[in-house]
């Protein structure tokens, strides 16, 4: 698994992982909008076996203390791996289908625990999807 962000941030609150450069792009956008990209650890799963993906997420959770995992697709390998991890540690929270609105709400929610912030941010992310036009 490639770690796009390089060094682990000082105060990470969550891991973001997805297909291709999805996670890096999303976190880059968070940084551009509010300068809080250091709250998030970026992982890419390109070219990895399922075991490698799971192992790398576990390793980063242990190293950073993050308690939240954001993934892109419910059917994605990262989501499958994360669900195995959450099964072993029910105190973790997995949010699949993450979007930019979700991450922005999450990084600003510093007055509650990361897991509480993740649940609220998921609702904000759902509400941010709108359709305009016929």
């Amino acid at each position, binding site marked *: 698994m490639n770690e796009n962000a390089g060094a682990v941030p000082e105060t990470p609150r969550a891991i973001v992982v997805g*297909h291709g450069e999805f996670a890096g792009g999303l976190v880059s956008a968070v940084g551009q909008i509010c300068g809080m990209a250091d709250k998030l650890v970026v992982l890419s799963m390109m*070219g*990895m*076996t*399922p075991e*490698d993906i799971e192992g790398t997420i576990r390793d980063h959770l242990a190293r950073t203390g993050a308690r939240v995992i954001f993934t892109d*697709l*419910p*059917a*994605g*390998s990262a*989501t*499958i791996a994360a*669900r*195995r991890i959450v*099964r072993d540690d029910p105190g973790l929270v997995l949010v699949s289908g993450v979007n930019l609105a979700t991450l922005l709400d999450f990084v600003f929610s510093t007055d509650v625990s990361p897991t509480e912030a993740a649940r609220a941010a998921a609702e904000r992310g759902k509400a941010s999807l709108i359709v305009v036009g016929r």
Partner: protein
Amino acid sequence: MGIHLYRIDDRLIHGQVVVGWGQPLNIRLLILVDDLVASSDWEKELYRMAVPPDMEVRFADVATAIRDHPKYAADPRPGLILTGDIGSMYRLVKGVKAIGNVNLGGIHHRAGRSEKLRYIFLTPDEESQLKQLEAAGVEVTAQDVPSARAVPLPEVLEGAAR
């Protein structure tokens, strides 16, 4: 409609399978053939939740899949049969004797495997099994997504397409 794709992918059900192939082929029936998954309710639920609501997923061990293959093939919905390893697909093909082509979708690096394509790594035993399938008249190609070129097995084994 029958089975539109026989795929080997060590990530089992994931984005390339459900979306990448599932949407253009309009797959409505997905059969995951894996002895380990078929024996675990938790694993089955894990993968069931990864499948969209308009796609039915069934789970079978290899022996059951060989027995039930005529039912899969007769189903009116477009189908996809997926195994996580070459050995399972090899056993399935040998048991069914009516499978004409196999897609290598993702077999990633592990100890003992060497790189053939960006997404295909094989042990000598796995290479041998794939050669035996081709010798038996099964067309084996590597193609991770529909928009990519289907790379014939001899070219895969040469490693020339890396």
